[in-house]
């Protein structure tokens, strides 16, 4: 294949990566922004979404599209419920102490991951795509489903943005994010807002996983990479800024495909982790973020 078509393919793949990454990272960013906590278990909510999706589609076998649609609704709801329960039982008890919650979510990471290993097993299992048509370009054919993923992710991101900016719930979230004490003084149910935000953050990761699982297969360790990438995106995009997160997700998702042309994934990861560390040391507000209030 020539370089042109190759680049086009990398572009397409990059768009898919970016779309899914944006969804996952926005979930993490939302939780950090509103609750000021770092959720290390975020990748496990992603993994759970994929595992539940496999479970749904295998229950409704024979109708891939139907099973997938069911997964698209059931998996995020289940994950959201799990997240909400852990928020009530654990994070609330820790009073959202930033350092304590990191350790607690690390514990949660191990618990969810190992329970998945017990319940689901160590194998990677595929999920059939709901649609199978291929788009034929002059140089190569491309799975139409991947473009559906991009469209769905974009729609979900728009919906999130709409909720945040145009609804009462969004207003409550933003008020809580801006100043918790004042929000409490204005009788905003901060407690409930936190529970909802944590659940919604996990659901965004779960839905991203449902979308990607027909391409990637479900596996109990699949949460590690999305966690790392979301971290990178959220930190570079400016902690807690949704807009910055989406922009960073697109930049990093797109470059992921292109970078892999030039270096091994391991080297790319090394550079990315070091970059994140350096950003946190020298520009804690993120590369594109504004200075803190």
């Amino acid at each position, binding site marked *: 294949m020539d370089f042109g078509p190759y680049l086009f393919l990398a572009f397409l793949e990059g768009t898919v990566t970016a779309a899914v990454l944006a969804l996952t990272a926005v979930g993490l960013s939302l939780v950090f922004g509103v609750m000021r906590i770092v959720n290390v278990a975020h990748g496990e909510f992603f993994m759970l979404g994929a595992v539940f999706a496999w479970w749904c589609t295998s229950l409704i076998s024979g109708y891939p599209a139907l099973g997938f649609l069911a997964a698209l609704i059931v998996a995020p709801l289940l994950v959201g419920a799990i997240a909400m329960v852990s928020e009530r039982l654990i994070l609330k008890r*820790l009073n959202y102490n930033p*350092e304590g919650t990191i350790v607690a979510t690390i*514990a949660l990471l191990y618990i969810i991951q190992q329970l998945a290993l017990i319940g689901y097993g160590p194998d990677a299992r595929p999920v059939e795509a709901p649609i199978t048509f291929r788009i034929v370009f002059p140089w190569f054919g491309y799975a139409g489903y991947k473009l559906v993923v991009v469209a769905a992710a974009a729609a979900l991101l728009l919906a999130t943005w709409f909720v945040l900016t145009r609804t009462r719930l969004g207003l409550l979230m933003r008020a809580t994010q801006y100043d918790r004490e004042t929000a409490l003084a204005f009788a905003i149910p901060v407690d409930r807002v936190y529970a909802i935000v944590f659940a919604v953050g996990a659901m965004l990761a779960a839905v991203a996983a449902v979308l990607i699982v027909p391409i990637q297969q479900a596996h109990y360790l699949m949460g590690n990479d999305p966690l790392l990438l979301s971290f990178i995106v959220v930190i570079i995009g400016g902690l807690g800024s949704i807009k910055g997160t989406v922009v960073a997700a697109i930049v990093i998702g797109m470059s992921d495909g292109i970078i892999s042309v030039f270096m091994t994934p391991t080297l790319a990861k090394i550079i990315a982790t070091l970059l994140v560390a350096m950003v946190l040391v020298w520009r804690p507000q993120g590369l594109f973020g504004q200075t803190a209030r």
Partner: protein
Amino acid sequence: MSVRATAARRNLHRIIVSHGGVIALLFAAQFVIGAYYHLSLTRVMVLATFAVGYNILFGYTGLLSLGHALFFGAGLYGAGIAATQFGVGASGAFVVGIAAGLLLAFALGLIILRTAGVAFMIVTMMFAQAGYLLVLYFGTYTRGDEGFVLKGALREAHLFGFSLNLADPVTRYNLALFLLAACVVGCIALVRSPVGRVLVAIRENEERSRMLGYNTFRYKLFALTLSGTICATAGAAYALLFAYVGATFASIEYSILPLLWVLLGGIGTVLGPVVGTLLMFYLVDVASSYTSAYMLVVGIVLLILIVWAPGGLLGTLRERKIGWLP
């Protein structure tokens, strides 16, 4: 003699008796236990040294690192690679491992101590992850996940004309015990020294310590360097005593484990990390004979500790009963 001096003397006696007692108990244990526990206890003592080192930074200085696998790994690979690639011999490799950790901790400290709290946790985690990936990336030398073993002449350490057979269980056990004892004694000395007092002050209230005239950055750098050096010493000892060097020991799991050991045994106590490592090691040991998902135990214990018992075993004991425990 003043009341205070008398009390201080009495406390020192208690500390010597209790901590010396634990070390004597560990020494005596080798004559009682069977071969399996003999080996695993040797392992526990090296890992407990790792935990004691971690505790200096976390427990006494209040800096929660999520990346100490980096220092353990530096000692492990520093010693392992020096021994296999550069033929420096076991004793030389040990020194190289320690030096690697010391230099790494000092250099990294200059950078990462600009951050605090959550940022410090993430930054340490990221650097450790980068270190782990570097081990994988340079697979030609490190043999990645698979790791490499130390063989032949490397199982023999020459020191001051003495020759120690590192493959011999009894030698191994007592070397590990000596290392742990030295670190425990060093830790007691540190905690009771003026430096230790300032480290605790930084943990309790850094801003106040700064305004009391302390260059807190320098103290934190000292704590990090010392902590990293001890962890690297444990890593180097691990490589040389058990003759195996693998990437697992540099992975995130080995950053979380010392945190868990310290939390379990008692944060900011000298013996806490030892007790925590011992209990957790055998808990995981038992769990892994039932299921491959033995890390579940790690998650559950960690969660229970952070939510319900942040003081850990000895920390809670000190709070309730024995206030003199260092």
